[in-house]
């Protein structure tokens, strides 16, 4: 029941009513939420440590005595193991500590060179912190001279790292090490380098989710980096990859359409074709397209041909059956009416069947295009890996999931927005359907939801203008 001004539903309208249409405002709001909610859940799990965060992501790593497993900064260890890891390093430090205080810089111990090597590692364990603070570039992580200077600066308090910072324990270790190191040499000199064991930095880290769930901001930053990186000799740029993937999907789909639509229409129109083609098609579609991949490579050899063929094989059998069914769905009385108006067999096909099924055929093809997208990854694994899939595969193997997510999301967006554009186009292509007169697409409305909200809020702030605008809208 609509009461109140301008068809607005009263405030008491229930949200939950069986099969009752929601007001357009509520429908739009919910569409916005349907996208916002998953994002909010992702943010919550990423930025609220108490929700999950089963791991610690290392900012500073360290070596342990007699343990071969090496962690570097950026690695994740489980939250249970992390204190154990720190304790193991502290135990090693306790053994070293006595010697470090009482050593004589002029006397070289017998195993000096191996100790020096270990000490250089300790020195470099600070490098990730320095890079993160912007004191070093990625390339300088092995520049011992610069790192040496940084140890000095931190020990003397000349510079204080703040993101990440060093905890008090590590600050103390830095100054103890530095007081020993500086007694040997004030600047870095590989010949004159401390030869008694230095204290190891204690592992330091922040709670985090496993690497397969990077935080939204990491995904955005990495995605931006990946997509703006220029192409290299053996590495196409991301947009070239996108273009390649889109060509494969649309190429395979276009071919399937070219062959499948006429066959489907014939099957739906003439029982002869239906009985001849459909039983085998129905059987063939149960054979998974990927099982043909090696066969397709044997037939079509390298490059894109077998990939396009896979999308084709994966799509065409469904397409023929769906189009045949749609064609059969045409109102039989329309065909009878056309016959009583003098239409001959050929004219029935060209003047009734084809124009009559076009809107539904268009919808079928929209759905089947989505179907073709699902073959993308498998198609790109056929033969030589290529396109977006090769990128996903490589990065995923390196566990760079912050690089993987942007690509997955992009594929989804390409498919989704293609479909939305096609849905909007349908209204213009087929003005005779009753859907063409329907209200604007909910997704489009959702996209303009925020701008409209802001505009309305701005309009409401002008008390003398607002009533006039509203009247003008009514008129």
């Amino acid at each position, binding site marked *: 029941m609509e009461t109140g001004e301008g068809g607005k539903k009263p405030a008491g309208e229930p949200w939950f009513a069986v099969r009752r249409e929601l007001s357009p405002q509520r429908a739009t709001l919910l569409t916005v939420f349907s996208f916002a909610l998953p994002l909010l859940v992702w943010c919550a799990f990423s930025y609220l440590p108490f929700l999950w965060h089963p791991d610690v992501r290392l900012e500073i790593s360290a070596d342990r005595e007699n343990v071969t497993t090496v962690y570097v900064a950026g690695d994740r260890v489980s939250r249970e193991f992390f204190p154990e890891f720190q304790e193991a390093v502290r135990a090693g430090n306790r053994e070293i500590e006595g010697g470090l205080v009482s050593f004589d810089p002029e006397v070289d111990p017998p195993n000096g060179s191996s100790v020096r090597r270990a000490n250089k590692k300790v020195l470099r364990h600070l490098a990730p912190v320095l890079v993160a603070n912007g004191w070093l570039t990625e390339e300088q992580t092995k520049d011992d001279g610069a790192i040496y200077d940084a140890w000095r600066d931190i020990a003397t308090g000349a510079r204080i790292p703040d993101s990440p910072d060093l905890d008090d324990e590590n600050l103390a270790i830095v100054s103890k090490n530095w007081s020993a190191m500086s007694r040997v040499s004030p600047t870095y000199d590989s010949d004159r380098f401390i030869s008694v064991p230095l204290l190891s930095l204690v592992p330091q880290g922040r709670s985090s989710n496993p690497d397969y769930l990077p935080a939204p901001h990491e995904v955005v930053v990495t995605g931006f980096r990946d997509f703006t990186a220029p192409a290299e000799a053996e590495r196409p740029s991301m947009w070239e990859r996108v273009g390649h993937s889109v060509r494969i999907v649309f190429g395979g789909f276009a071919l399937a359409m070219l062959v499948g639509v006429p066959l489907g229409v014939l099957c739906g129109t003439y029982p002869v074709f239906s009985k001849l083609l459909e039983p085998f098609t129905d059987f063939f579609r149960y054979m998974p397209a990927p099982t043909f991949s090696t066969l397709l490579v044997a037939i079509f050899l390298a490059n894109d041909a077998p990939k396009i063929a896979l999308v084709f094989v994966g799509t065409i059998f469904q397409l023929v059956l769906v189009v045949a069914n749609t064609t059969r769905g045409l109102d039989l009385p329309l065909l009878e009416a056309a016959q*009583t108006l003098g239409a001959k067999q050929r004219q029935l096909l060209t003047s009734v069947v084809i124009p009559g099924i076009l809107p539904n055929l268009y919808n079928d093809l929209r759905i089947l295009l989505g179907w073709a997208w699902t073959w993308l990854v498998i198609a790109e694994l056929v033969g030589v890996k290529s396109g977006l899939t090769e990128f996903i595969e490589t990065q995923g193997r390196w566990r760079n999931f912050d690089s993987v997510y942007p690509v997955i999301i992009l594929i989804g967006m390409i498919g989704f927005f293609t479909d939305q554009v096609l849905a909007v186009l349908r209204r213009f292509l087929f003005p*005779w359907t009753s859907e063409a007169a329907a209200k604007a697409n909910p997704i489009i409305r959702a996209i303009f939801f925020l701008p409209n909200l802001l505009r309305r809020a701005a309009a409401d702030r002008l008390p003398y203008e607002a009533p006039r605008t509203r009247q003008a809208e009514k008129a």
Partner: protein
Amino acid sequence: MTTTEPALHPLRYLKQSPAVRERFDALKKRPVVLSVRNLYKTFPTPGGSVTALRDVSFDVYRREFMCVIGPSGCGKSTLIRILAGLEDASDGEVLLDGNPVSGPGPDRGMVFQSYTLFPWLTVKQNVMFGPRMAGKRGATVESEARQWIELVGLSRFENSYPHQLSGGMKQRVAIARALANRPRILLMDEPFGALDAQTRCQMQSYLLQIWKNLDITILFITHDLDESAFLADRILVLKANPGEVNEIIEVPVPRPRSSDQFITSEFVATKHRIDQLIHPESQSKSDEIPFPRMTVEGDDVE
């Protein structure tokens, strides 16, 4: 109003005024447009073949308006579909202007009960469909189509699509579309059955006017007694199981017809006769349902 007068003579419907008799004499002198000869139709079913039509024969004269009525299952839809050529007869023949016909053709226009306008064509394009199928193109086809649309009073909607029209308007376009082919006979299969009562009345008057002003013969299927008595010159009453000709009634109601005639004794007698033929008394008694009283005392509504 519709209760039959008890004093009504059972054969009152056979009495024709001199003017009406003169009309029928003139009508029967006109050439026969459609002639149905010993028509049979049997359908094979798992339980053996079922006879839908048995030995149906009748003639329709030029410019006659004939209605076909009968109880459900009498095969009236099968009959009209055979006449249109959409189904084949098992035996017998259909002659149009003396020539046997088989298969559908533009010489027998048809208006269906369901809306069969082509949804992708505008009103004008729908009306032009028949001529276009015959290979006609150009401005004359279009201007003729406009005239047909004007005839059914839809000039304002010539560029509308069917989904923008009401049910009554759709059927008017369907009539114009069938007439645009200049058929020898217009077959109408319960064309107003899906319309509401008011629109149906309007459409009946419209149809009579079109019929009056055009050289057109109409065979009209209906299950509505009032409709048949209001529209028809003669009413072909069919029997059910199998469908056979029961009687051809010459409607004694004079023309031009109007809704005022619904209470005349000719009209009532005709309806009464059809009712007798379609619902024999023996049948209606067995259909009576015992009605238990399910209300408390003191709230009588009668």
